[in-house]
């Protein structure tokens, strides 16, 4: 596993900690920073490292397992599994993503990031995912 397989969460954020863990690990999974076969720390270990309750990490692992990313072993942590390509998202789901993306772009514009830079960032992000 490459040394950059690190996640960060912000305990003062409005976003629940378990959701932040799911999102952060999913980025690593999609980018193949965590390839199939990789072992993840046990629920207890990750909870300790992040300073959150065991249930928070347990819930995050279960959510990722339901998405097909992880195989959970009782008491032995989790293993990344090969995930089949999902079918194209439904129009409703695509609309949800579009709303989230527009919201994110608006936040970046409001923070003073130029449109060209936002486009470059999005391009870089999608290129990273396709590798």
């Amino acid at each position, binding site marked *: *596993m490459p*040394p950059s*397989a*690190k*996640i*960060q*969460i*912000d*305990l*003062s*954020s409005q976003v629940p900690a378990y959701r932040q863990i799911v999102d952060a*690990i999913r980025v*690593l999974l999609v980018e193949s920073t*965590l390839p199939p076969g*990789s*072992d*993840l*720390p*046990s629920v*207890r*270990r*990750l*909870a*300790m*490292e*992040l*300073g*959150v*309750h*065991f249930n928070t990490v347990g819930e995050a692992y279960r959510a990722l397992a339901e998405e097909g990313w992880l195989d959970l072993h009782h008491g032995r*942590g989790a293993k990344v599994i090969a995930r089949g390509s999902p079918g194209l998202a439904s129009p409703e789901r695509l609309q949800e993503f579009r709303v989230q993306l527009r919201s994110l772009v608006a936040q970046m514009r409001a923070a003073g990031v130029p449109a060209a830079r936002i486009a470059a960032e999005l391009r870089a992000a999608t290129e990273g995912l396709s590798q």
Partner: protein
Amino acid sequence: MNNDLPFSLLMAAFVGALMLLLPHISPRRYFFAITVPPGFHSSDAGRTSLHRYYAAVVGSVVAAVLAMLALAQEAPALLPVVAAAVPGFLGMLAFLWERNRVAKVAPPPGAVREADLSPDDDRLPRWIALVLPPFAFPLAAAAYLRAHWNDIPARFPIHWDIHNHADRFAAKSTQAVFGPVLFGGGMMLIMILLTLAMFYGSRRGRQRTAIVKMMVATIYFLALLFSGIGIMPAVQFSPSVFLIPAIVFPVLLVAWVVKVLRDPKMPAETTPDQCWYLGSIYVNSQDPAIFVQKRIGFGYTINMGNRLAWLIMGGFAAAMAGLVFTLPR
């Protein structure tokens, strides 16, 4: 002049010096046991805080000296107590006072937490096996005692006064002869269990490895010390030979700790300031860590908000109490 006075004056100066060092014997992320941003120590607020604390400690030593001079004739027995308690207590009050002030001016620590998803760091280092060889020392001591059983006198010293004169004796028995060796071996075993508990019950980081190294070194020291003490019924030499190692080992340990603490690469653990009481008691039921990095000094302290921590410390206390019964009376 009272004989206790010079010794007590020296002790007051020593305790005062220790109190002056107190803000400096913690990781650099902490200042008076409060999380501060880099550079806070050298800021105006930081320097003012430190100078105010120094003045309070020096004042407490002066107060102790004046009290000792006043008590020297009337209550000489109280001099060592005053020498240790006045600078110690007033110095600690000054420390806590500054801690509150720093907490008000230092920006609140961030709530961002980071974790490495690699499971590799959870494996004990291979060199942990170094804890096993020192058990050869108490075993060898026990074998030596058994082989020389007939050389052991019917009554042998087990305690010496400050002038190195034996003042307590034990009658020859299995417990009296083998007790100290058994006690030493038990202590080493407890140290190993505590090391494992600390390794698996604390967050990853360079400090965790450093603490394990310190524990391994301590196990070697205990092995040599109690094996040496253990063979005394058969060999009967002066216990003063233990004086030098008993001083040198802690001094070397402290020197190493200071070196480790000064290392800018040594990370500080992120724990909420509001969960720390008196700068050294951590209570956080939301934190699954059993052991957390100390904010004063080097090492770990238990998370008193974690039930498992109470269980471990209860077991540790019970084991220590049980070991005491192995010693000759």
